[in-house]
Structure formats: C-alpha cells, structure tokens
C-alpha cells in the first residue's frame, strides 16, 4: 500500500515538474517575442518619422527659454544644458522638500501624541486632510492661492529689508563675495573647528565631572559670531545685490518664482502628513513599559523622549519614511502641472521639439533611479544603526 502511494506521488511530482518547466518556457518565450516585436516596431516608426536615435541631440541648440535656472542659461544653449537646468531644479526642489517635509512631519507627529488635546486634535486634522487629497490638487490649490493672494509687483510686500513678496515671486538680496571674503570663510572654518573641539571637551567634562552644558547654543554662537565680527570690521567682505523695481519687474537679487514656491510648499504640506503619521506610529509602537521604566528611574520627560523613546521609534520610522522620500522625489515631476521647469517639464518640451522621446525618458528614469537609490542607501545606513541586537 505505502509503496504504491509513494510511487504514485513520485509520478505526480515529476509530472508537476514537467508542467512547471513547460509554463516557464512558454512565459519566457512570450516575453522575448513581445520585446522583439516592440523593438522592431520602434525602429520602423523612428525610420518612418526620420528621427535619428542616440544622444547626439544633446549638443544641439535648444532654442527655448526656461523660467527658473540656478545656473546661467539662454535659449542659444544646448539641449544638454537645458536638461541639466531641469535636473538641477529637480534636485534643488527635492532636497528642499525632503528637509522641510521632515521637519514638518516630526513636529506634527510629536504634536499628535502630545498631552495637549487641542494641539493633538489640530495635528490630526492636518494629517487627515492632507493625506486624503490628491497631491496634484494640493499643488494646483497652493499655486492658485499664491497667485491670487499675493500683491502685484507695484504693491510688493517688503517682508525683510530689501526682500520682496509679489505675484512675480520672492525676491531676496543675493550675497556677492568681495575681496576680503576669504577672511570670512577662514573665520567660519575656525568657528566650526572650534565647535568640534568644544563638543569633544564638553563630552569629556560630562564624563569626568558630570557637568553638562547648553551645547546647542554655545555651538551656534561659536559658528555664527566670528563671521559676523569679520563682516563688521573689514570692508568689502560680503556685499548684497539688492533687487530693485525697474519697469514691470524686479531686477537683480535672487528670485524664487511662485511656481517654485508653490511646488515646494505643496509637496511639503502633502508629504509632511505621511511623515507625521510615521513618526506618530513610531512613538506609539514603543512599549509603554519603556516609558514607565525611564520615569520610575527619575528621568525627565524630555530625557525619556530623547534617550529612550525616539531611538526605538526610529526603527519603525526610518523604513517607511524612506518610501515617503522616494514618493516625494517622484511627485516633484508634477511640477509640470504648475509650470515649474523641472527635469520632466524641460524634457517634455524637448520631446515636443525633436521627438527624441525614448532617449529623454531613459534619462528621466535614470536620474530618478539614481536619486532614489542614493536616498535608499543613506536611509539603509541610518536604519542599520538603529536595529536592535537580539540573540
């Protein structure tokens, strides 16, 4: 009986193996056939439209203007430089968004678990509203509010000395390095070196005598005060190019157009809600007993948060926040909807002009992949630092 059963089972297994082999081969065959067909079709289409494939178009003249550029650019520059402007814009917007979304997320996340019911409720409303609305709508809304709400250039608000806020954007003075600027850099460098030594000394003093210092404030003073002294005593260190109203717009200074402000503001508002949720769930996930043990030892609530709760919360906060950073970077391509010239927007214009869609899309995908892989790498390094050692 048992012999015949095992024989039958053996036959069944080999039949299954054969079947799975067949299906795997079939699937692989279909995939290869599809890929081959697509390749052929693409080649045919490109030939029919007389589009040359390859990246040589990058050195041709672009011929279109770009509204925001952190590097010098004019329509007579090449496609390559135009795309570079877009890539830098994407990078710049993404980095700013990540920084501010993280700050907003931490504040709102901690607020949600704070003892104050009013603050907790307000943070909850913010999170629920923001994460349940499509990000595109938030961007359009913010952009609309920015454009409608701000005064015209003639009535620009001077929100800081020589800094103006108007429908045309935010204008702030641009620092220009003078002849003696090098002294300021030296002072700054010395301040930073001094801070490093101070922090080491403070740690040592704490270890030896148990005395602690307000390290954050002293460090800030050490970094900020020397450059300020240099600026005040020497002439021609750092001068400011002040934006001035000429004709219909401001000239000079640094310009952040409303499109850029709306993009950053909208993405930060949206993604901050997700990060807030991560932070809240991270804090809640730390066992109640941890807080009780710290409290029972007489540690203050701040110490408990800093040394006991947050380090453990980070274990769950970091992986999910990595996802949010990746989504944030990808969402920045929605800039095209409000007219900020990010990589996708600039690339789209190029495709319209010369039809090199495959190459441009390949570049887009390559850049997004690079940015997100770098983020993943950094976050994984951080994550490994906070993992618990188990048996």
């Amino acid at each position, binding site marked *: 009986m048992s012999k015949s059963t095992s024989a039958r089972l053996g036959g069944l297994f080999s039949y299954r193996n054969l079947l799975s082999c067949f299906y795997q081969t079939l699937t692989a065959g279909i995939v290869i056939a599809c890929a081959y067909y697509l390749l052929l079709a693409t080649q045919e289409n490109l030939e029919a439209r007389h589009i040359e494939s390859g990246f040589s178009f990058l050195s041709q003249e672009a011929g279109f203007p770009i509204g925001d550029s952190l590097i010098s650019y004019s329509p007579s520059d090449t496609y390559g430089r135009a795309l570079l402007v877009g890539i830098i814009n994407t990078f710049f917007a993404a980095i700013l968004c990540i920084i501010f979304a993280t700050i907003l997320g931490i504040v709102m996340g901690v607020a949600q678990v704070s003892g104050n019911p009013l603050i907790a409720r307000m943070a909850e409303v913010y999170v629920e509203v923001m994460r349940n609305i499509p990000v595109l709508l938030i961007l359009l809304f913010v952009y609309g509010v920015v454009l409608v709400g701000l005064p015209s250039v003639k009535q620009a608000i001077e929100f800081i000395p020589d800094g103006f806020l108007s429908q045309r954007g935010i204008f702030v003075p641009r620092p220009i390095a003078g002849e003696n600027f090098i002294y300021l850099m030296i002072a700054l460098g010395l301040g930073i070196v001094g801070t490093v030594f101070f922090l080491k000394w403070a740690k040592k003093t704490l270890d030896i005598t148990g005395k602690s210092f307000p390290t954050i404030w002293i460090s800030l003073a050490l970094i900020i005060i020397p450059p300020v002294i240099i600026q005040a005593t020497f002439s021609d260190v750092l001068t400011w190019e002040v934006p001035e109203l000429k004709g219909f717009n401001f000239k000079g200074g640094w310009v952040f157009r409303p499109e850029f402000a709306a993009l950053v503001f909208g993405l930060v508002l949206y993604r901050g809600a997700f990060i807030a949720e991560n932070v809240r769930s991270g804090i809640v996930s730390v066992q109640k007993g*941890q807080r009780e043990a710290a409290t029972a030892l007489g540690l203050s609530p701040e110490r408990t948060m800093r040394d006991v709760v947050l380090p453990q919360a980070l274990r769950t906060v970091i992986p999910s926040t990595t996802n949010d950073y990746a989504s944030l970077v990808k969402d920045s391509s929605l800039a095209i909807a409000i007219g900020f010239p990010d990589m996708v927007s600039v690339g789209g214009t190029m495709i319209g002009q010369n039809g090199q869609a495959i190459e441009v899309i390949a570049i887009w995908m390559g850049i997004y992949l690079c940015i997100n892989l770098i983020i993943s790498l950094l976050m994984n390094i951080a994550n490994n630092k*906070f993992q618990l*050692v188990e048996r």
Partner: protein
Amino acid sequence: MSEQNAAPAATIEQDTVISLVDMNKWYGDFHVLKNINLNVQRGERIVICGPSGSGKSTMIRCINQLEEHQTGSILVNGQELTSNTKALERVRKDVGMCFQHFNLFPHMTILENLILAPIWVRKMPRKAAIELAMNYLERVNIAEQSEKYPGQLSGGQQQRVAIARSLCMAPKVMLFDEPTSALDPEMIKEVLDVMEELANDGMTMLCVTHEMGFAKSVADRVIFMDGGEIVEENEPDAFFNNPQMDRTQLFLSQILSH
C-alpha cells in the same frame, strides 16, 4: 525577622518611609483601590499578594505615581505626592522599581542601561557611574555580560540587570511588581536569591508576588488584597498558619493546594 514586629505598637516609633492615607483610585467608574491605609517603616520587607485584578500592582504603582490616585494622600519620605512634576522626579529618584517584564532599554548595552539615570538624574561623572554600575552588576553576578544587549540575555539575567539598574540610583525603597511572573521556573530562584540578599542588607521593600516561599522566609509583613481593598495583614507565620478572614483562607487554599 519577626522579632522586629513582635510588638506592633513599638514600630510606630520607627521612621515611616511610605504612608498611604485613605487612598482611593478609580479607572473611570471602576473603583480600583478602596480606602487604602498603609505605613511602611524603614527597613521593612512587605509582600503583597492576592488574586489577579485585586489592585496589588496598581497600589504599588501609585507609590511612584506611574498611576495617579484621586483622593487621599501618599507620603514618601515625608513628601506628599502631588501632580508637581519636579517634585515627583525627586521622589522617583529615591524609589526604585522592578517590573514584571523587566523593561530594560533594548537599544542600549547592559552597562548603558545602568549608567543612564545616574548620569542624567544624579549628575554623576561617567567614570564614577560606570564603577558604580559594575559594582552592582557584580553583586547580581552578571558583570561579564555588561557589553551585551538585553535581547542577548535570558529572562532571569534581564531581571537581575533590572534590579541592578534600580539599585544604581541608591533608592531608599524598592518596589517589585511581580518580578518573577514572566520567568521560566528554573530562573525564578536566581532572581529571588538576589532579592533575598537585598532584603538581608536592610533595603525597604514592597513586593507584589505569588512566591509564597519568599514571603514566608523574607517578609516582615504579608498583605492580602482582594477587590481593591486590604483584606488582611499580618506577619507571615500568623498569616499562613492562622488566616482570620474567609477570603484569605479561600485564596491560600487555592494557591497552596498543589
């Protein structure tokens, strides 16, 4: 041990470390602790027992205000516990506590667990804190594990570390909240040994525990709680051999029957 308490009237003259006066606590509508009155003298070892849900843990958690009480008063070292956070932190420095689930900080090494509070609460230099910590780790026979993480230790070892961590703050009173309930049987003894040694050194202790052997050999007084009230308290001999109340007799017959 029982000589100390032979004449209860005389002990009132000793200095009182903890006193609960007409303390009441509610969870919503549920009356968890009803008119608790308890005085603990310096050096006294008290074991609190009773069926689960009788309020034993809640009562000792009120002593360092992990739980708030609503009416009545609690005095620790003569200081009344109010909601003043700074005053509470001062009281907590002098009241050590061990939990059923140890609650070691899993992201710190054993040594870091021990020196955290001495450095930040007692403002002790790191070097002195480490010396102190190693001292206590040796006392609980675990010094060689000081660089390991809690997750790498057995339950019994973790509980001994937790006791050492509390002792580093040089507490005047130690509270134990079912310290052996989460342990495998073979590890219970190593923890009870440490506690017994602590008791012999004259530490004032309040232990919530189901270890009746420990109660018999170590306690000066056994308190039986049921339904949020202190039903009976007596010295161990009298408590175990001649319980006065029906509820106590029932409880003892249930736990001592097997």
